[in-house]
């Protein structure tokens, strides 16, 4: 138990974003006139935030979802799958789940996607 706690403490913090509601695949459909349609109800965001905070995940809520961070082991435990870091130079593959994550039942209906933002390039 203590060993696992020490592993978590030494683990790298990983950032991820959570979006709610229907996934819109067409980027041109996301625009300023339609922006309010992408804002989920506050109660849903808050419910998920509380659930994830209880699981040890740091969450910052905003109009469109949650920006989260947690040690790798915590994320893997909550979503019951492994995280893989392929290459630091290829940002499409920076972090990803090895298999489909199992989203806990309590928030399964609410979450539409979980993404891991890699660091951008500084121009």
């Amino acid at each position, binding site marked *: 138990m203590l060993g696992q706690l020490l592993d978590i403490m030494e683990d790298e*913090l990983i*950032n991820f*974003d959570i*979006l709610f509601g229907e*996934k*819109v*695949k067409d*980027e*041109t459909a*996301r*625009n*300023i006139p339609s*922006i309010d349609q*992408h804002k989920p109800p506050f109660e849903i965001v808050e419910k998920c935030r509380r659930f994830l905070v209880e699981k040890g995940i*740091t969450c*910052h809520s*905003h*109009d*469109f*979802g949650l*920006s989260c*961070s947690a040690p790798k082991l915590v994320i893997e435990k909550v979503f019951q799958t492994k995280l893989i870091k392929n290459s630091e130079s290829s*940002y*499409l593959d920076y972090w990803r789940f090895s298999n489909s994550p199992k989203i806990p039942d309590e928030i399964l209906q609410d979450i539409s*996607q979980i*993404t*891991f*933002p*890699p*660091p*951008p*390039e*500084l*121009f």
Partner: protein
Amino acid sequence: MEKKVNFEVIVKPSRDQKSIYATDAFPAVSNLQEYKPPMDKNVEVGRKLERIGITVHHIGEYSISASCTAKQFEKIFHTKIRKHKFRTTEAIAGQKEFVMNSPGQEDPFEIPTDEGLDQLIERAYIQHTPQYFSTERTIPPFWNDKFRLRVPSDVAQIMKVSSLHKRGITGDGVKVAMPDSGFYHHPYFIEQGYNFLSIAAPDTVDHTTDFSGHGTGECANLFATAPGINFIGVKMDNPTLAFKTAVEMKPDVITCSWGYSLDKPETSMPNFLIPLHLAILDAVSKGITVCFSAGNGHFSFPGAMPEVISVGGVVVDENLNYSATAYASGFTSTWFPGRKTPDVCGLCGELPTADYIVLPVMSGADLEKEDGWGAFSGTSAASPMVAGVCALLKQVDKNLTPDEIKNILKYTAKDIVAGTNAHGKTAAPGPDEATGYGLVDADRAINALL
């Protein structure tokens, strides 16, 4: 690659000599001989150290300089090497933390008995990389190896803001936010009297530390065009969270000198960018003018979003020849059909290194060249310059919308008709993909309003 440790070995004194570690030892030039072990003894120790796998670099009269891997050191001296961090004083500009790898007070440490070394060696100490007590100049240095621009004067003059500043149009009362690598409170900013505030996005700490130098340096371009703004630098880790943190500060303008080179032919936006896309749309819908660098040869997102001001690069040489630079992007977006970048340009260096503008950085930062200053300038430099001009427009008319600001900048820009950009697009009379509508002309932009 295994971590290496450098250490100094002190040989035990002969019977008729004093130990340098004796409580009454007080070495001085006049008595130094009393502490000097016989040279043949030092040579003997050096050879024995080599026989147990240690690299001996120098056998001196008072100590032996040696190195080995950290693991070897731990094994040979029966000890444990730990990382110790110390905070330094603020007086040591830029270097807030000093790291030492060495055994702690509580750790065991034994001189090895192999080769009888315990009878010959008095002590062995790991030597650490020292702190560099560099100082940061308050004004940009002149480096004579090539033509470069200096902040604020050269940038202000070419962007045509100097006369506006004299008329009191400085961005006064306008809030500009900038998410980036960190914002070191360089003495240059203090000397210039800028309103300089930095904060940490919720997933970062220590917003005044900027080991890259990027955020610190690039914001000097913003102040060069708008010295009267209220600046908020947001230290970034997750860019989406940093951008949203910037929005929450309710700025008039946000400038970002970063992006992802992913808007390439036959691709679509990856899922991880959707939260950032939404956050930027939300900012613009709230009336915030958002400037993004178009990229340095990148197919950059968010720089290609139709809702942002996409800022490319123009280079101006010592003879005041203006041209597109092969360092800056300009392309047709795949993700946003019909969208061509950039909209307008700021100043940007030329290939191969674009070391064109002398900018302040934290001492020891990756981009430092000398004395707390570096020379760099991709479209990272151009975006904050243009954001500064947006701030001047907002000062004159608080009600301008992001679209109106973009249009004013476009239709008053200086057309660039020479040079080729990073994507091989050639500048020609009128708008083009090399420089968009051209280099922002702040004086003409403001005059269009008055």
